[in-house]
């Protein structure tokens, strides 16, 4: 395997690289990545999001970009921009599939090759933050991305967990992984921390509580915050599809803008927005001094 001895040119103008990791599946890595990206954009940063979950890419749906395709330019693959302001762009294998239901049945070496391409062949241009969303586990995708980014010196990883012990047990493994490959841990986010009943406003701890904070304390890493379940966030994500349905097939990058729906704007009304503003501020502060 060819090893890189320098920063891949595709990443030379990217100021900060943050990975979003979790040993456990379905804890909200993709929704946390999405919200971090939206919050960073609100703070005025330009953000790129790379989805290396090859067998279950969720980001195209999250950003309402499912009908989009990747374009090839002379410099490489052009990521998909969410709107014409070009503050936020996304790259995912989801954009390369013929049909959204197609499965990608690949063994490790092929996944590794794809990740290599995603790191080296995408024209990210100038970015303040590149967020990398990962699949669960500590296997091919994770080893490959760590290898590919070794010389690019990523700022670190945000670990996502849900509060119950079954989830934090897997996230502990991810922590061990980060330590082994020398990836800094920016902090832990506890997702799905309580659900507020829309009928009586009583908070139920569906997946128990406090697991993420305990984990952070135990490993002496920053605890970035607890995010409750807000069913309206799911609805917000789905609403953009209802709005965009009329423009399916349209390839213009501002298709969603054209329908008057902007996730960046709408997200400001979401109750999770202020919670993420705090988490994002911490991430910004933690990455500020890191010189790449």
């Amino acid at each position: 395997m060819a090893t890189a001895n320098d920063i891949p040119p595709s990443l030379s103008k990217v100021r900060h690289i943050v990975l979003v990791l979790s040993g456990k599946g379905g804890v909200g890595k993709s929704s946390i990545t999405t919200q971090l990206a939206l919050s960073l954009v609100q703070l005025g940063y330009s953000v790129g999001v790379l989805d290396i979950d090859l067998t279950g890419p969720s980001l195209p749906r999250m950003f309402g970009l499912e009908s989009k395709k990747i374009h090839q330019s002379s410099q490489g693959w052009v990521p998909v921009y969410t709107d014409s302001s070009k503050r936020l762009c996304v790259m995912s294998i989801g954009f390369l599939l013929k049909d959204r239901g197609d499965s990608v049945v690949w063994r490790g070496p092929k996944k590794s090759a794809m990740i290599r391409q995603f790191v080296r062949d995408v024209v990210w241009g100038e970015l303040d933050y590149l967020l990398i969303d990962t699949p669960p586990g500590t296997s091919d995708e994770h080893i490959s991305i760590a290898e590919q980014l070794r010389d690019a010196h990523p700022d670190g990883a945000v670990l996502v967990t849900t509060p119950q012990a079954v989830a934090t047990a897997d996230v502990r493994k991810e922590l061990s992984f980060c330590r082994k490959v020398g990836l800094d841990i920016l902090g832990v986010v506890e997702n799905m921390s309580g659900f507020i009943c829309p009928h009586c406003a009583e908070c139920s701890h569906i997946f128990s509580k406090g697991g993420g904070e305990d984990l952070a304390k135990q490993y002496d890493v920053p605890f970035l915050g607890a995010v409750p379940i807000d069913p309206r966030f799911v609805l917000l994500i789905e609403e953009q599809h209802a709005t965009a349905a009329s423009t399916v097939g349209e390839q213009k990058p501002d298709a969603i803008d054209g329908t008057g729906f902007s996730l960046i704007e709408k997200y400001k009304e979401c109750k999770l927005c202020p919670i993420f503003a705090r988490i994002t501020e911490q991430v910004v502060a933690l990455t500020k001094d890191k010189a790449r």
Partner: protein
Amino acid sequence: MATATTVTSAKPYNTGTIPTLAAPEPEHCPGTDSEQAGKADACEGCPNQLICASTPKGPDVDLPAIHRRMEGVRHKILVLSGKGGVGKSTFTSMLGWAFAQDTDKEVGVMDLDICGPSLPTMMGAKGEQIHMSNSGWSPVYVADNLGMMSIGFMLPNEDDAIIWRGAKKSGLIKQFLKDVDWGSLDFLVVDTPPGTSDEHLSVNQYLKDTGVDGAVLVTTPQEVALLDVRKEIDFCRKAGIKVLGLVENMSGFVCPNCSGESFIFAPTTGGGKALAADMKIPFLGSVPLDPRIGQSCDTGNSFLDEYPDSPTSKAVIKIIRQLREFIGDPVEDDEDE
């Protein structure tokens, strides 16, 4: 090895025909066990070329051994989902406990999630270790008639990460199938990690000819999850795995305070039911969320036994009855509680 010894660490396993490589597989590797191994264009200059080229090709030499082990297993059920965290392991453990309620049945549960094994915790077997004897690896028994196997039992430290690439994971899966002394089983339930990759291809490859009853797919109601499950159904079709049905988990939440029902993961596109109809597979039912499930899983108790009156338990029992009918082993009615 005559005396029983304990498997303490994740040592390099004898992976059968998967050769020990000198370096990671390169880009466009045709697969170390393929006909083209060592001969394809991509193999030129690969440090593994000689190793791959000299490995005998053809059917896996371990398949007969797997066959022998699986001869005594009547029903094999895979639990799959493209999406993580939808409750595959929870449902697997419930299946295990429910099958084992029938004391005449012997049940095995196998955890193929190598990087994030949850079943030892969920089934109350955390900290147990696997013993090796002449006849193979002995499963860990959590009840008289309920044995289980997971990589979680092999880690010296439970926080250790298993940083393995696919080929190594496949090797361990093969060992689980070949070397674990299940004895004769009525049901073997196989829990899998999310995705459609090495683990799924390998378990299918090894078990295909031994007769798998089929796969139960688990999903949650929101479209982001359904999308991944769609891919898993596509995978099952490509791989020739029969889909026994789809279970929608976490559908709806009943507030313990006001009993008001709400959707946590809103089924904006019709949920599991619409997906099942769309993909023409049986829909087995919806399982509502009960916050006590999480607690039962963390403490390793059987939720179905602890809270038999919960709507969740009732839904699961109903699904399991249907499943047993599908695999031709229906519950006899006098066993009804």
